[in-house]
């Protein structure tokens, strides 16, 4: 079934400069596999070498984090929207905050 995958700005350069891509898939795993087959440069930004979704990548189905659904086996319905949301984290140097 057709679903839309929203590509965040830093990854558009690896996805033909598109901000959204339509994919035929029945699960989130299938959609991401389809996407990275079509745009192979995206793979290393989304998956680890052993094929797991990277820690720094959040995937939302409509407004829900797939971690709290059925992870990548979450089933899809017509016109669902999958959003790839990069983890945004940082900070200054380590220091003792024990005191």
């Amino acid at each position, binding site marked *: 079934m057709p679903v839309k995958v929203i590509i*965040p*700005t*830093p*990854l558009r*350069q690896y996805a033909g400069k598109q*901000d959204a891509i339509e994919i035929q898939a029945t699960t989130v795993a299938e959609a991401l596999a389809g996407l990275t087959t079509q745009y192979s440069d995206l793979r290393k930004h989304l998956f680890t070498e052993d094929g797991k979704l990277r*820690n*720094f990548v*959040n995937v*939302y189905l409509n*407004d829900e*984090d797939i971690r709290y659904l059925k992870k990548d086996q979450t089933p899809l319905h017509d016109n669902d929207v999958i*959003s790839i*949301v*990069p*983890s*945004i*984290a*940082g*900070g*200054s*140097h*380590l*220091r*003792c*905050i*024990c005191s």
Partner: protein
Amino acid sequence: MSLKLADQHLDSIRAHGARDYPNECCGILLGKADDNAKQVVEVVPLANLRHDPKRAQELLPLAEPARESERNRFLIDPLEQLKVEKHARARGLDVVGYYHSHPDHPARPSTYDRVHAWPWYSYVIVAVARGVPKALTSWVLAEDRSRFKEEEILQLPSSA
């Protein structure tokens, strides 16, 4: 590439850094980009999710929780990020970068910043010394992820 910001955006980032001191603040930069520059149109302050250690740890675990907290780490809630992004897209804007503060620390990216950075985005850092905002810099991750490159900030007069 350079980053264009109006006075009001710089003021808003500095004020957020001072307000959340001694903790790290964070927020999103919305705007438009072409091949030469990113132009910030709106600065959206967000909460530092490290304020809620349990939820933050679930989303992006810290290696040394005894030495890492909202004092020296920030994390943006991905759901908040998604909402801001959606609202921006509806208005023809994109996420061009993020900002955060370094309380009592220079406005230079840490190794932790680099490891967690994404390509292309502008990462603005404001140093806050004893509650007073100081240097403000912007950085973009190098293609090979080995380092950050400092980016020129072009300060524009505030729009009415």
